[in-house]
């Protein structure tokens, strides 16, 4: 008996030097032996590489940014749904999660499933709430503070030692060695991501990350830890390797069991020379390096699809340590006709 074909819509096709997770999520899903899928790409820009990459999407549509308004955004998703019958949508950007979570029941009524954290889960792990989160769940986090104005900057020296980190509420983090640098970074981040801007204590150590999937009942379906080996000037992993770090796994399982996290997540931690772990960020979605987890034996995108579709999923136990990924750039050739079609028709 043939398997029913699932129509899965995926965002985050921007496979640039600051990559979205869409392409690796799709690769994982496509490698599933159990799923038959049609992938519908949802792109915000007409030059997102995933639109043009062969074998990634079956069809791609341009969609408006969530900032253009929930109604405009949802109208477009539902218009695509009427043409494609979307069974599941996997949003891969932090900035669109709020809209998708708020619209979860509306989408469900239309037959579009999601597998996302709740709004409360999303909010409590936000960068600005991290100190309270650490206290509530017994996880060590660096000291941090929200600022909303340059007038907050001179007094930072009272609470923090330089250097410190200046972070946007969704993306971007810069190291600042003095108040002047904080001001410069503050202005840049505020213009791009809005307020507040987060000031965070700088913890010296090695950055280690975990990609994990929670099923919403407190169960960790899978988790793989990775150390970045090569970091771009945007702080993104250009190369990484899976590691065996029982303490990180323990922290991950603890967080998922306590929070009943539903969906993919990335924990960013700093391991100090003395072996202490500081949780510096929780990204509420699958990270762009998830294909490393797939290669190491945990196909978390596939597991997420199965969870969303109500299929049985057994938790992964182990993964291959010492599996590496290295990104590369590749000049893919296209035709002006493709560009014209996505630009003029909003689909390709």
């Amino acid at each position, binding site marked *: 008996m043939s398997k029913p074909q699932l129509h899965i819509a995926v965002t985050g096709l921007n496979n640039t030097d600051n990559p979205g997770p869409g392409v690796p999520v799709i690769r994982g899903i496509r490698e599933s032996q159990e799923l038959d899928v049609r992938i519908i790409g949802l792109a915000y820009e007409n030059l997102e590489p995933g639109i043009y990459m062969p074998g990634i999407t079956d069809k791609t549509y341009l969609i408006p940014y969530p900032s253009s308004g929930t109604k405009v955004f949802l109208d477009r998703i539902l218009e695509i749904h009427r043409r494609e019958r979307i069974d599941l949508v996997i949003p891969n950007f932090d900035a669109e999660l709020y809209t998708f979570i708020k619209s979860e029941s509306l989408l469900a009524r239309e037959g579009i499933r999601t597998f996302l954290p709740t709004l409360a889960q999303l909010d409590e792990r936000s960068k600005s709430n991290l100190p309270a989160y650490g206290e509530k769940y017994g996880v060590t986090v660096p000291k941090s503070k929200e600022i909303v104005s340059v007038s907050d900057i001179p007094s930072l020296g009272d609470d923090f030692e330089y250097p410190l980190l200046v972070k946007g509420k969704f993306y971007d983090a810069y190291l600042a060695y003095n108040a002047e640098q904080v001001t410069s970074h503050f202005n840049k981040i505020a213009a791009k991501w809005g307020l507040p801007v987060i000031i965070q204590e700088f913890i010296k150590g090695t950055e280690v990350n975990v990609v994990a999937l929670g099923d919403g009942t407190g169960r960790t379906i899978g988790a793989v830890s*990775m150390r970045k080996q090569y970091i771009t000037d945007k702080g993104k992993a250009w190369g990484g390797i899976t590691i065996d770090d029982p303490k990180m796994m323990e922290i991950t399982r603890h967080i998922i069991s306590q929070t009943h996290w539903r969906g993919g997540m990335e924990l960013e931690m700093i391991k100090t020379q003395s072996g202490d772990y500081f949780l510096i960020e929780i990204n509420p979605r699958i990270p762009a390096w998830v294909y490393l987890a797939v290669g190491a034996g945990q196909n978390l995108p596939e597991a997420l699809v199965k969870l969303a579709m109500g299929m049985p999923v057994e938790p992964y136990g182990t993964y291959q*340590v010492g599996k590496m990924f290295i990104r590369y750039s590749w000049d893919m050739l296209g035709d002006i006709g493709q560009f014209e079609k996505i630009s003029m028709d909003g689909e390709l």
Partner: protein
Amino acid sequence: MKIKPSIAINDNGFLFDPNTGESYTANAVAREIIFMMKQGLSIDEIRTRILDKYDVDETTLEKNLIDFQAILRHYNLADSTDL
């Protein structure tokens, strides 16, 4: 001093620490010493074997062995409690 059991080393002298993801390369003599440590030989036994095998005076070997142990400790490749 004992090399941590989790540290993997191959015949080419390539070391991998699965806990941190760090990798290192050891030259031929360093590789030999690490293999001996993994077999559980003491530093005295290693010293004797190296002196027997290589044309090296005791003072030079001692100095290099101390340096090498410090490097292993620095990179957290050896259990410093077993010094």
